């Protein structure tokens, strides 16, 4: 190739890279503006309140449709919505629908939605949602109504369980994918016992992308991975701890890596006391987590 063609191809390539970068940056700016806009709507509840009528059955269906597939919820959770939405649009945008619903339930409340990475909802607070927390069925309907507004698909939630205390009920639904619990992933709904009003929602739902779900190692084989780590120490692999079940669970290391793991608790009694939690990948056979349970 002549020098002349080399220069032409170099310049052309540079232009392509620059143009692509500009497009990416502009897209990010646009999405940030959208995010800020909806955050602003939440914090300023006295403005932009929409009529409950605007939440038409069609809109609900649209929203529900968008949450039905795992892939769509992942798309939302792992980044930003794939489309912009203006205030009042009936486009099934999960953020829009969440804020709209909150305002329907209590237009005057200073609602706060705490998010992580701009998409995953971690907490909803600031007002009360009448009657939606009266019983397990109501809470289940409430969570279905929220849909993928939480940033991941509520289709992955187990039926809620309830703990009852003097003044409140606490409902907890665990994130379950293909029958396996996602480690540490749940939604908790807090409701007032006197009238069933929901006053707080906490979510630790996780984005699970392409989890490794093959069980190449059974529990006994995984146990054999654990024991050598404690050679020379007095230890016991506990078998009856509530943390360790007969079923493996999905451990989400990060958004790029999830794997089915066997969970072990190991009590070390010498030379120094310790109690450790160890996750062994059921497919990879790797120790993915080994940390002390000691708090002091």
């Amino acid at each position: 190739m002549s020098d002349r063609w080399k220069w032409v191809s170099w310049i052309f390539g540079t232009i392509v890279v620059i143009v692509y970068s500009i497009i990416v940056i502009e897209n990010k700016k646009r999405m940030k503006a959208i995010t800020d806009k909806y955050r602003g709507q939440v914090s300023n509840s006295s403005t932009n309140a929409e009529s409950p009528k605007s939440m038409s059955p069609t809109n609900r269906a649209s929203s529900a449709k968008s949450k039905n597939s795992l892939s769509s919820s992942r798309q939302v959770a792992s980044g930003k919505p794939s489309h912009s939405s203006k205030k009042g649009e009936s486009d099934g945008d999960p953020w829009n629908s969440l804020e709209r619903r909150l305002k329907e339930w209590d237009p005057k409340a200073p609602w706060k939605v705490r998010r992580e990475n701009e998409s995953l909802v971690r907490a909803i607070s600031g007002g009360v949602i009448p009657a939606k927390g009266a019983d397990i069925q109501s809470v289940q309907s409430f969570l279905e109504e929220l849909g993928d507004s939480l940033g991941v698909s509520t289709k992955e939630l187990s039926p809620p369980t309830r703990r009852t205390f003097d003044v409140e009920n606490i409902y907890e639904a665990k994130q379950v994918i293909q029958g396996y619990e996602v480690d540490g992933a749940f939604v908790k709904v807090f409701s007032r016992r006197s009238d069933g009003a929901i006053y707080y929602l906490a979510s630790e739902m996780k984005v699970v992308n392409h989890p490794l779900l093959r069980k190449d190692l059974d529990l006994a084989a995984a146990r054999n991975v654990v024991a050598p780590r404690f050679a020379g120490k007095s230890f016991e692999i506990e078998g009856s701890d509530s943390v360790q079940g007969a079923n493996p669970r999905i451990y989400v290391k990060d958004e790029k890596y999830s794997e089915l793991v066997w969970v072990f608790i190991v009590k070390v009694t010498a030379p120094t006391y310790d109690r450790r939690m160890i996750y062994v990948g059921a497919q990879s056979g790797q120790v993915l987590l080994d940390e002390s349970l000691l708090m002091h």
Partner: protein
Amino acid sequence: MAIGGFLKHYIVTCIRVTQVGTLGFFILNLGCSKGFEGNKSSVIEIASTSQGDPKGPETPESVSIAFKQGLSLESAEVSEDVEIVSSNSSEIKDIQMSLNGNTDRKLTEAPFIYRVNLVKKESPIKVKALATFKNGKTAEAEITVNPQLAGSGGIDPSCMTNASYDACIFWKNPISHKKSVFKPAITYGQDVATVQSYGIKLKGLSSQSELKSINFTVSAKDGQKAVPDSAGTYKYKYAEDSGKSFVAQLMAYFWMTEEIEIIKKKSGRFYAEGKRVPVSSLDKSVKNNAYWDGQGIVLGEVTIPGKPSEVALGADVYIHELGHGNMQYAAGNTAYRSCGSAAGCIGAINEGQADFHVALVFSQNPVLGEHFFNSMEGMPGRNVLQNHNLTGTSAFSSGGGEVHNMGAVYASLLWEMYVHPAMSHLDFSKMFSLHLAMLTNSSTIANSKAVFESINIAQFDGKYKTVIDEVFKLKGY
């Protein structure tokens, strides 16, 4: 705002009659409770009557001052809520309060909540209320408040020979009990007979032959399992305890049982109740430390002051550790890693709330680690009485994100809300227990404000918004 409300459920135990003002007699009912014992409440009630009126009271002017100490013994420790109610409140102009003859707050708005701050106070305090009515009449009432030590036992120099006790231990820890440090530091088998005088009855034992209940099973890995003596009691002198560690086991059993009882009385719940927590009161492989291990409690050997002894001699330590357990049963397993910013993290919250368990049990003396450090000031940096000005930013910049370091901010935040003049201690105790279940891995000290706000809105009609705002601002959030 009109003064309103009703006086109910309070027990008036004796009555005096006195004359106040010029236009009539005022009947002054003075509650004669002996401080904070039992479940009784003391009441001061002032009511006016017209002199010589055969029909009885002509004007229903009255002011009742109820010392709401009856809910629990311990709730009275830090301060007392004084609720003033009246059947004809519009006639009252104001009420001047005084403590031991010194003028204190003048109450001008209803509902009145007047608090007697009892932190670090042990002597009786005379609380006086002087009500001025709009027609110029006055009425006054007085009551004596006797601060008492937390716990169902009592200090008795003759404890070892008094048959009414099951065991003789230390109140909180040997330093707190003695009210001074040991020189040199206390060690195994030391003769501390003059200090080992807190007489207790052991509660909830499911067996007469071991320290076991539905809540705990106490033993000592590097000691002997405590068993009753020939008289069926556990009266063991610390001077003869070397190698056994019976006193440490008794301390652990008694004070953790008290922790559950006290916090349940204050807040209505203790999540770790009934969980049969195994407790090892002495594991010498653990130096200068103690653990909640996700299931049980392991207490080590303290060597910091120079001479070794059981960490378990300090009740504050395992009250803290059981605090971790309480949160685990409330919120589930949460992460325990350093915080990445001054906003704090769930690990710091966990540490701070565990410290606050100590403050709830020993509200009058919430210092942590006196025995551990053989110091009246306790563990450096963890004293809520000294951390009023500690903020998230200052703690993070000086000590980084280590969970105990940042936890001190959270403990201080909780304490400042608890002792805020506009906060009811019982309400905050409930708020505290409720909030434990609402914490998750993504909780930070900063965003925990939304948790308290939610509880305040849902369970307390929003009346503590100012307290929450002020205290979070004080802590830099």
